């Protein structure tokens, strides 16, 4: 009932105030996802504010990654799932039949848990997204790649070896390369799926710094099971459990004074 009240509150606020709506880059309405008979994501209503970092936390199997992947329709490829409800990107439902999935994925980039550079050169990795989008102009490519690598805080480390194989970079560098690759196609939203889970603390710190820098230009959604990480870098935090959105609020509120007991138990480690 309390959750319903929050959902109602959101819906009301959205309808009441158009300027309020303009603040949001994406929002989901009554989103449900099934894998076969498994109801993985249950009735999620969530609005994602522009130029903010939204962290999604919750125990393993809580549906947070599934939710994230539904935001750029990667669920279509990764695991076959059935979806109900709406996901709006700038007031357009990305699951409408007239929507070009490829275009959606260009607008909503994604960085995966394990860094996955192509077995190509650093240059070609970043150029890939541009090339598949039909850009051939050499000068433009070079400029764009430099810009993206700078945005991903990797330029200084690789500027003199753009032609060397991406797989020779360190784990942290590879992940930043993947971020640069995602940024090159000028997305509007960037989704991060546990981007630091395979990295050491120094590399993690760099990526966290980077994410906070990136929110100036992009809207960011990050799934993490490191709560301190969510606390450090996000503006809003959503707590998922068993496919439900238990609590969604400003990060400082969630981590100092959550309003639900379940949230409190989870973030203080009193779970189970």
């Amino acid at each position, binding site marked *: 009932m309390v959750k319903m009240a929050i959902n109602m509150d959101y819906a009301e606020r959205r309808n009441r105030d158009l300027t309020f709506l303009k603040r949001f880059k994406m929002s989901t309405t009554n989103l449900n996802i099934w894998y076969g008979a498994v109801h993985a994501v249950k009735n999620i209503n969530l609005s994602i504010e522009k130029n903010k970092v939204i962290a999604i936390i919750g125990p393993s199997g809580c549906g947070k990654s599934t939710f994230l992947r539904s935001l750029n329709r990667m669920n279509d490829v990764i695991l076959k799932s059935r979806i109900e409800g709406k996901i709006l990107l700038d007031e357009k439902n990305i699951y409408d039949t007239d929507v070009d999935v490829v275009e959606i*994925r260009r607008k909503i980039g994604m960085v*995966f848990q394990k860094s*996955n550079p*192509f*077995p190509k050169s650093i240059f070609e990795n970043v150029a890939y*997204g541009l090339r*598949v989008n039909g850009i051939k102009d050499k000068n433009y490519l070079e400029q764009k790649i430099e810009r993206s690598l700078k945005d991903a805080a990797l330029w200084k480390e690789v500027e003199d070896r753009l032609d060397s194989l991406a797989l020779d970079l360190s784990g942290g560098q590879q992940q930043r390369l993947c971020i640069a*690759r*995602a940024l090159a196609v000028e997305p509007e939203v960037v989704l991060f799926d546990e981007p630091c889970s395979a990295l050491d603390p120094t590399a993690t710190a760099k990526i966290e710094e980077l994410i906070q820098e990136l929110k100036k230009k992009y809207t960011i959604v990050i799934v993490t099971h490191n709560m301190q990480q969510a606390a450090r870098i996000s503006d809003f935090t959503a707590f998922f459990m068993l496919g439900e959105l238990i609590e969604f609020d400003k990060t400082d509120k969630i981590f100092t004074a959550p309003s639900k007991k379940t949230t409190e138990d989870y973030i203080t480690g009193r779970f189970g």
Partner: protein
Amino acid sequence: MRLRKIKEFIGFGIVRLATIIILLALFAILYFIVIRGIKVVNWQFLSQMPHSGMTAGGILPAILGTFYLTMCAICFAFPLGVAAAIYLTEYAKQGKLIRIIRIGVSNLAGVPSVVFGLFGLAVFVKFFGFGISILSGGLTLGILILPTIIRSSEEALLLVPHSFRWASLALGASKWQTIFKVVLPNAVSGMLTGSILGIGRAAGETAPILFTAAAFYTTKLPCSIFNEVQALPYHIYALMTEGVHPKAQVPIAYGTALVLIFLVLGINCIAIIMRNRFRRRQKW
């Protein structure tokens, strides 16, 4: 404790023995062929036409014929097999139908090769009217090695990590672009390895070309794909079963067998070397 050790000793002894028997068989074959064939093999043998009713001269037309036939087979089977593998792994909805197709492909590999020969005779030689020719024989051999190529191509495609496909799709690439720019370049070495093994098999087969391509004896080299040719395996068969001068023919047959066996071994070696290189380069 002791009983366990004895059991272990016997167990290992049996498997060791099995390995030794296999190695012995392989070396016995090589030994007999080499001993009997090495006398006739020299540069003239490899580079001259046969003459005097196959009792003298070289085997150049058979070597070239085998080369043309396998080339023809691979040109036909490689693109077809790769395309089928792409469809099966990347596009088709994984389900009952695909399972049946996979089983079908596997069974195709088990069909006796003489049946392929008959099929080639009926379809390529007669129905399409290609006659007994390099084309008919090559296509027949192509169908013979198709299952190998499809299998190895599928395996190569499945070896490309999913994360590559996801990364590409997440960057706004279409499925087609993803397959052509990311998946295929990373699978092609594996596909080639499998296909070369297929070539090795095609080069050694007699039955499929028996009715479709092989000439018993020619004094000319073929000048188009519609000519019939001699081929190494069939040449051996002909030398051993036909003709009137067994004394002169048998050593030539062993020489031919030696050439064939080293050709096939060589092709397989190339495949193994390629695979090892490919594995070393792979870092994901």
